[in-house]
């Protein structure tokens, strides 16, 4: 995905996405799905709005995927699967043809067709809203043409193999053109009838609850031919305090939560009334080195740091062992994962010392407990290689501003939540001039590979390209990767049939309560 990404603190990744390593990828289903019931889901923060055009939060995506349909879907292995588009084909480098489902109506009765797709994509691409966020997602699209009611053609400015992944997320979400026009400014707060997804909007009482009810005309059926979704109602509740989340899970006040504190995972696993599952995520934690200023304009010093870091210790002490040690930007959840890539797998302070020693640098971190603790571990680990780390905890907004916009840092602890396509985990970060190239890293070979990755549609070839790029990025210590968190899911025993997908979003169409 070509989306310009954003950083999130390692602390957030570790605490917010804390999950156990080696978990299952799909939920269990005991017997025949039962129709009906209400599922109460806890969310770690309140959403800002319900319009995909201006959305920037993961908790919003969680609701959108159950309210709206995207053009393409993904399965647990991140393969593209048909959703509103039944098939897709690049007829040449710059032309993507989508064949659309013909039996779909939006919840307000409007037909879903090629005109609706054009309306939505044009709306995203030409939005004048200052908070419009899909414009940059669809930057490679020149124009959208309606070929016939069931066929739409995307003409691109340049080859962009990441576009399919973009169309899975919010930029590919289709809203009823009638609803968008008639709702106007009410769309972000009460999108009645706007979706075509398994559930439809009922009410949103900010900071208290958001209710969706079953869409009786949803186009999908299960394998046995039963109408989806199974549930009658879904209620999302924002519970910002993780202790309260856990209490609500234990008492049955909520049925499902995406996040509990890392420290509580062990007790959740031990609780016989709860079910804990996780799957490797697409995100990573670690710290970026600024290659444009001393000391890391000296490549040897950057490598020495990467060599001396004990990733397993960070995972164990800060991440409560949830997730795995990171070996690079492509995690085991991705089709492009390279299991042989273990350049800095184990700490080697002696080798670090012989590479470069006796220098110092400042590591900026967010002022959260997890971030500071991670910083302290790194400080102690690097001391063994004769490298002095000065810790500077900062407010997250300030840290982001100084790292991302002003590049005023030597090292900065920043993680990334991950994207479906490897491009989304790499291009913006390490391509020269990339929008998230905070460390001002520049390597012509990496630039060439990342360009090539975008222009190549064959997945096997792309896999090789991204693995080659990853080797250089990790080897150069463009960024010091430490941990890959897991995507967890905690439910009570009644919740059945959910599939954990590495993007961390719960699709609830096939979920039921026993």
């Amino acid at each position, binding site marked *: 995905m070509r989306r310009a990404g954003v950083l999130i603190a390692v602390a957030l990744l570790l605490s917010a996405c804390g999950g156990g390593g080696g978990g299952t990828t799909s939920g269990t289903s005991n017997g025949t799905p039962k129709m009906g019931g209400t599922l109460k889901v806890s969310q770690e923060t309140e959403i800002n709005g319900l319009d995909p055009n201006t959305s920037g939060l993961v908790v919003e995506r969680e609701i959108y995927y159950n309210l709206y349909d995207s053009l393409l879907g993904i399965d647990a292995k991140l393969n593209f699967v048909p959703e509103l588009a039944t098939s897709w084909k690049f007829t040449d480098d710059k032309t993507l043809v989508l064949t659309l489902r013909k039996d779909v109506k939006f919840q307000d009765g409007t037909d879903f067709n090629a005109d609706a797709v054009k309306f939505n994509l044009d709306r995203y691409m030409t939005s004048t809203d200052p908070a419009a966020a899909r414009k940059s997602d669809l930057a490679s699209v020149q124009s959208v043409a309606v070929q016939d009611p069931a066929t739409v053609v995307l003409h691109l400015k340049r080859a962009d193999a990441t576009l399919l992944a973009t169309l899975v997320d919010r930029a590919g979400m289709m809203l009823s053109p009638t609803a968008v026009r008639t709702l106007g400014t009410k769309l972000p707060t009460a999108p009645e009838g706007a979706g075509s997804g398994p559930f439809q909007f009922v009410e949103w009482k900010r900071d208290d609850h958001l209710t969706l009810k079953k869409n009786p005309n949803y186009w999908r059926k299960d394998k046995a031919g039963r109408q989806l979704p199974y549930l009658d109602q879904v209620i999302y509740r924002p519970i910002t*305090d993780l202790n309260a989340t856990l209490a609500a899970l234990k*008492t049955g*006040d909520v049925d499902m939560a995406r996040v509990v504190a890392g420290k509580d995972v062990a007790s959740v696993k031990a609780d016989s009334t709860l079910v804990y599952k996780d799957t490797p995520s697409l995100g990573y934690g670690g710290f970026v080195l600024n290659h444009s200023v001393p000391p890391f304009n000296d490549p040897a010093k950057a490598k020495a740091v990467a060599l001396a870091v004990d990733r397993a210790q960070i995972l164990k002490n800060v991440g409560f062992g949830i997730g795995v040690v990171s070996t690079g930007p492509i995690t085991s959840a991705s089709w492009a994962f390279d299991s042989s890539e273990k350049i800095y797998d184990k700490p080697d302070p002696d080798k670090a010392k012989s590479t470069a020693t006796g220098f110092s640098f400042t590591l900026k971190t967010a002022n959260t407990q997890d971030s500071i603790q991670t910083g302290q571990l790194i400080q102690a680990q690097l001391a063994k290689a004769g490298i002095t780390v000065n810790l500077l905890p900062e407010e997250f*907004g300030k840290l982001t501003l100084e790292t991302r916009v002003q590049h005023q840092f030597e090292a900065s602890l920043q993680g990334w939540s991950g994207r479906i396509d490897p491009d989304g985990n790499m291009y913006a970060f390490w391509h020269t001039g990339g929008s998230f190239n905070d460390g001002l890293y520049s390597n012509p070979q990496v630039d060439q590979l990342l360009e090539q990755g975008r222009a190549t549609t064959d997945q096997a070839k792309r896999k090789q390209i991204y693995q080659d790029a990853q080797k250089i990025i990790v080897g150069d210590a463009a960024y010091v990767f430490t941990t890959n968190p897991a995507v967890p899911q905690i439910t009570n025993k009644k919740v059945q049939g959910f599939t954990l997908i590495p993007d961390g979003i719960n699709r609830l169409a096939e979920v039921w309560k026993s």
Partner: protein
Amino acid sequence: MVEYLIRRLGLMVPTALLVTMGVFALIHLTPGDPATVILAESYTPEAAAAIDRDLGLDKPLPQQYLLYMGRLLHGDLGHSVRNKLPVTQAIGERLPATIELGIAALLWSLLVAIPLGTLAALRRGRALDFVASGLTVAGISVPNFVLGILLILFFGLLLRVLPVGGFAALTDSVPDNLSRLVMPAIALGTFGAATNMRFTRSSMIEVLNQDYIRTARAKGAGWWRVVNRHALKNALIPVVTIVGLQVGAILEGALVTETVFSWPGVGKLAVESIFSKDFPVVQGIVLMAALAFMFANLLVDLVYAWLDPRISYS
């Protein structure tokens, strides 16, 4: 009296003005910017610049303040940065929940404090006094969020007699509303209960030693009548002062308590708005809280006159 009221109300204007200045300056001194938070995973420098322009953040600070004050004089507190709602609406939607919680917390603090404080004074130096004093120390020492979590653990998780959080509108279900109100109200009101109890006790002891109490007793009035009719009303004057100040403490405590109990009030809104740099909402809430505090203390001054006829404001 009317003249006094007008003078007090008039004094509120410069105070409120100072509050707006202070909050405005403080909020713009805090690190980080709204654009980073709004755009989150979709951040680009261009998009951030567009948001700054849209919010007027590209203008010099004094100009931003004057624009803000200009709008404020027209009753416009601005719009939420997060979800574009008018600030008055954002606060208005949450206010009933906070008022309900605040009243419940205040009631809890008074219903516990006045009887217990009075009893402790009457049984001075005896077991009940020691127990009451012990409870007071505990109530003052335990922060409301710790008490909140302990209540959740005990009544929510262990006994499972009360829901662990959330809110139900009074109009939807009175029992559901009240059952969810109990724990946050206790968590929020206990500090006040402990403080009020101390004041009631010491004030009561002082009053009970007054000559007129002895006179009343000598005239043959029973203890209950003396305490209830003669002592308590006079002993409550310092307590009323403290209760006025407690309105501020309750508003402050609501920040944490509402977060712990997922109570959708102004306190929770304030916490979320601070974290998301939603400065128009934060400014609106602080202004509202300052006004509420000033009015509560005005009310206290007026109650003095009722409690003690010797106090005159004319």
